[in-house]
């Protein structure tokens, strides 16, 4: 587990250091719509860019201004402080408008802070619709990205290599599905914190190493008997981008809750949803990455998303949903309000909370809300039991 924890809690983890030591390039990317398989096929380490380890916000605030999500600001802050100097390249994607602006803000900051813009800096466009022309456009974008990587890094990304990459990534996807099955049982043997760390690690570790470690870890989990979910409320965490292990720790350290599921950009959203291993690999990647409605950035997919959420709540036996959104995150802020309304209709309690991304300066505030939410769920369940008892007596 330590290898996952190390990868999930450090910007430059040991596996990145080892990869660089072997003289191989590392490319950062900002969004789950970037097919990481392409980099694997080019023997480049794809690393999801994150904002952990941020200690101030002077660089981020200077170029972004105050009224924007703190996640891209933290990434820029780290870049400005030289924490991403190990990157050979960066891919910026319009996951949302805040993320899109990272492209110009990073380049502008690079004029003032020498050497913070990686030698390869690429804007990868992603459409907001997955139908027909949207899909055709996205396929074009993937081909352009491949061409650009081939030219810059002097590599050759063949279909054969891409298919091999897809097969390797699918192994991980299947393993994460097994992990989700374990978390959905009556007696959960793995904490949400551990599971989330393992998922986040998957976005920064070399894939072969990750798949092997994940396999080992999951088989060790399967032998575990001790239930961590006994007498605890089973929570699900959804909302804005989060790779913060301490958010999960904060919830589980109450001693009254276990996180059994999440729907987060860094969390598990793809499990069981494999990429097709036959046919044109670029089209298969496009169908998977753009075709899956995993993010509220996509137009017209709300119904699908709320249904996925409901299925998940059912499958993982969720008692309550924590809906967090980073300030100024319009996408998740708006969607959380709709989710809360629709879950309320089916009797699933939810907690909506707005917060800042980053080192947990918000801990006290979050803790109060989580505790009150857990007490609310307990009260609700207690009432239900009492009503059932009364009904049984009168029957």
């Amino acid at each position: 587990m330590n290898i996952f924890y190390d990868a999930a809690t450090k910007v430059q983890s040991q596996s990145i250091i080892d990869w660089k030591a072997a003289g191989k390039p590392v490319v950062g990317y900002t969004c789950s719509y970037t097919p990481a398989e392409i980099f694997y096929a080019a023997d480049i380490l794809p690393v999801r860019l994150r904002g952990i380890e941020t200690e101030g916000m002077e660089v981020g605030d200077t170029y972004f201004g105050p009224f924007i999500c703190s996640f891209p600001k933290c990434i820029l802050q780290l870049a400005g402080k030289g924490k991403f100097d190990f990157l050979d390249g960066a891919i910026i994607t319009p996951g949302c408008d805040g993320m899109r602006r990272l492209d110009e803000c990073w380049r502008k900051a690079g004029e003032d802070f020498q050497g913070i813009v990686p030698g390869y800096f690429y804007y990868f466009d992603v459409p907001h619709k997955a139908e027909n022309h949207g899909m055709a456009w996205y396929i074009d974008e993937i081909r352009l990205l491949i061409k650009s990587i081939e030219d810059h890094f002097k590599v050759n990304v063949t279909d054969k290599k891409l298919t091999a990459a897809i097969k390797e990534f699918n192994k991980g996807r299947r393993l994460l599905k097994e992990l989700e099955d374990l978390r959905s049982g009556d007696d959960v043997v793995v904490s949400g914190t551990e599971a989330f760390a393992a998922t986040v690690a998957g976005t920064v570790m070399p894939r072969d190493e990750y798949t092997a470690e994940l396999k080992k870890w999951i088989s060790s989990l399967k032998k575990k008997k001790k239930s961590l979910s006994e007498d605890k409320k089973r929570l699900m965490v959804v909302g804005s981008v989060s790779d913060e292990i301490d958010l999960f720790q904060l919830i589980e350290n109450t001693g009254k809750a276990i996180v059994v599921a999440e729907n987060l950009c860094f969390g598990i959203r793809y499990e069981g949803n494999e990429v097709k291993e036959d046919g044109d690999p670029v089209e298969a990647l496009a169908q998977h990455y753009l075709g899956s409605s995993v993010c509220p950035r996509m137009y017209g997919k709300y119904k699908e998303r709320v249904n996925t959420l409901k299925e998940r709540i059912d499958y993982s036996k969720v008692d309550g949903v924590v809906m967090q959104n980073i300030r100024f995150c319009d996408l998740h802020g708006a969607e959380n309000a709709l989710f809360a309304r629709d879950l309320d209709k089916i009797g699933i309690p939810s907690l909506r909370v707005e917060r800042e991304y980053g080192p947990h300066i918000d801990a006290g505030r979050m803790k109060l809300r989580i505790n009150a939410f857990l007490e609310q769920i307990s009260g609700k369940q207690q009432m239900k039991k009492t009503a059932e008892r009364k009904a049984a007596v009168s029957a």
Partner: protein
Amino acid sequence: MKIVAGCDVGSLTSKAVIMRDGKIIGASIIRSKPRPKDSADAALESALKDAGISKDDIGYIIGTGYGRDKIGFVDEVVSEITCHGKGARWLLPSVETVIDIGGQDCKTVKIDADGQVVKFTANDKCASGTGRFLEVMAKVLGISVDDLGKLSLKAKSPITLASTCTVWAQADVIKYINSGVSIEDIGAGINTAMAARVAILVNSLKPKGDILMTGGVAKNVGVVSTLEKLLGVKIKKARKADPQIAGAIGAALLSLEKVNGKKS
């Protein structure tokens, strides 16, 4: 005879309530000290003195408030949202919606017949709409927070604050003072801005039934009357006890349930 207590350590004030058989026999409100533990000790000591008993007489104590985890003497901690719900129900049995405005938090809580929280919402990480906002403004005006509320009653043409951000509103208030606007009109404007901010939060929860305000700001007539206008409903007054100690009352009631063997 069962004696229980609740201790609510807030960011501005700390409160303790001692109950015997469900009746308040001692209570205290003190200014919070830098360390929550010291605040809790002082609040309890003062309440014990009020009740004329010693700490050993108390069967169970529940702590709440932002400093709840740092209180040394409690048997258990419960969030202030749950405690305010419970306390409000005791203060006014018909209440269904509680608006609690404390020093750094503003919460709206919907409760059921048992005082159990059904739904709640709380302010963002911002001082606007909290007791701290009023305190900062009172300081700028050179008056006490208690007097600030009464200014609304004497105002002729209240000012409008351009922003409810505590820092910007403060700059606005200074500007009005310097341009010779009466203190009553400025004070009324501050209370209105505060009420408007709170009204947004309250409305987001779709309040229903009788509404009760708890926390220190419940004693500010200016805020309460403007809030009534904005919400279009009458806000009930707590007559059984000071609304500022509602959280501590709730904690004491939960202690009593514990002693009686009921699940808290």
